[in-house]
């Protein structure tokens, strides 16, 4: 038994991807934990931006929603919801967009809308929220999901937020300025787009995870990079910071979706 859980490995890895970044537009759920961890570890000056209008939020506990009171109270500025999308997200001034997903396909496209037919769905999901424009307009995006075959799927029935679309050149043809999903971070490893095909390929595997286990949890025939790395283990400092965050949050009651 390792000294950390798979979720902790995922969150720490996601937080590390924010090193050297000035600003992060934070989606709800797993991304929020990772972004808040980054502020406590590799990126203390990182400006966290929430779609509720909080810019530069510095919460002491993990927010349970994107509009928790502490986000506004600790922010450098709180602006209206129209302003956060129009003045802050849309012009491409935010470095990284951090997104979760119900489903993500091999080119990093995201579905958070429906499983099944749109008009009579098998499962109705929450919908788009801020994600389509976060995915379009941040200079780059990072997607954080747990690695399951029903989550990493070959094809989406509904594209809520665009990754690389149909493949190379698709984003540029649509006039999107952001680079798209440069990284998909899961509890098993890290997937990055192949420069030729834009297909997400395994570039790093978390310690103790077998490549076959990753393949089995991926809904498309997974390409493993020749130079596959093993993700660096969480440091004691990272784990302490993360556990302090999540403990403080859970003592407030309620979990994080």
């Amino acid at each position: 038994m390792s000294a950390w859980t798979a979720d902790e490995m995922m969150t720490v890895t996601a937080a590390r991807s924010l090193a050297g970044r000035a600003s992060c537009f934070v989606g709800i759920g797993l991304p929020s934990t990772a972004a808040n961890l980054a502020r406590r570890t590799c990126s203390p000056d990182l400006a966290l931006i929430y779609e509720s209008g909080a810019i530069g939020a510095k919460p002491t506990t993990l927010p349970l929603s994107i509009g928790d009171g502490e986000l506004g109270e600790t922010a450098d500025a709180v602006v209206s919801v129209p302003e956060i999308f129009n003045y802050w997200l849309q012009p491409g001034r935010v470095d990284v967009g951090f997104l979760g997903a119900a489903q993500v396909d091999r080119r990093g496209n995201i579905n958070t809308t429906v499983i099944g037919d749109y008009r009579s769905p098998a499962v109705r999901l929450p919908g788009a929220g801020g994600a389509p424009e976060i995915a379009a307009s941040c200079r780059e995006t990072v997607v954080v999901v747990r690695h399951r075959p029903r989550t990493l799927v070959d094809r989406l029935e509904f594209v809520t937020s665009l990754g690389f679309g149909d493949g190379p050149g698709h984003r540029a043809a649509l006039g999107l300025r952001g680079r798209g999903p440069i990284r998909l971070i899961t509890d098993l490893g890290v997937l990055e787009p192949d420069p030729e095909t834009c297909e997400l390929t395994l570039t790093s595997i978390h310690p103790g995870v077998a490549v076959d286990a990753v393949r089995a949890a991926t809904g498309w025939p997974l390409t493993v990079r020749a130079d596959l790395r093993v993700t660096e283990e969480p440091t004691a400092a990272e784990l302490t910071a993360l556990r302090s965050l999540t403990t403080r949050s859970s003592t407030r009651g309620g979990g994080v979706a």
Partner: protein
Amino acid sequence: MLVIIDAHGVWFLGWLLNYCSYSAQTGSRMAELVSLAEGVAELVHDGDAVALEGFTHLIPVAAGQEIIRQGRRDLTLIRMTPDIVYDQLIGAGCAARLVFSWGGNPGVGSLHRFRDAVENAWPRPIEIEEHSHAGMANRYVAGASGLPFAVLRGYVGTDIAKHTKTIATITCPFTGEALTAVAALNPDVAVIHAQRADRRGNVQLWGITGVQKEAVLAASRSLVTVEELVDELEPQPGAVVLPGWVVTAVAHVPRGAHPSYAQGYYDRDNDYYQSWDPISRDRETFGRWLDEVTAA
């Protein structure tokens, strides 16, 4: 001018509302002070397009439950983030349509009554019109600005526009670039909750203020529930003030945002959000909840 409306005052309020409706006529009146029941009775009608706004913070839950209690039907419910209060309205059968951008129980999971309506047409079929947050926010901005549409970089490459008639492509007359247009939202009524109003109906809210100003300014009528009625609005950092002459009615409803929060008054009741999950998951437990609310 301040008129306290008692039980017999409804006729006068009705006259006043006609008089104040958007038109070229001058002389708008200040907001009236009403009870929550009076405000909902006068301002929210069957078949109306109703926007209850409040982005996580200051959600007008008490007003939503009063709409349930008064048995409104065939509403078009508009809201960026339909959460518990819309789950309740939908489960109670008040809504014929839902216009939204994210429907979930924040920090918990699904909205089961919303899903039951969309997936199984229970208790009645519900039509949905779905956008992104950026699109909905801009639709309110257009509505508040007296414009028929707004322009944004949005939806490109997604499947959202395929199912929604209120999204179109528009070309920049200067650069030739293709952008996205969304149709304005102009609800019949906007309902919001605020921390304070003064006795002239000037409304003050602060903290995360979301899209409430836009919703009120876009709507033909508005009802604002407040934590507190005060003589004078003390300036507050980050506050939005809506002058009384753009608000139709104000109702004093302490804890009117519970289980969401009102900054400076009370915190978010996270346990309520958790406890809603088992209540709403099942039609019967929801039915019991509904009986209790309507009996109140």
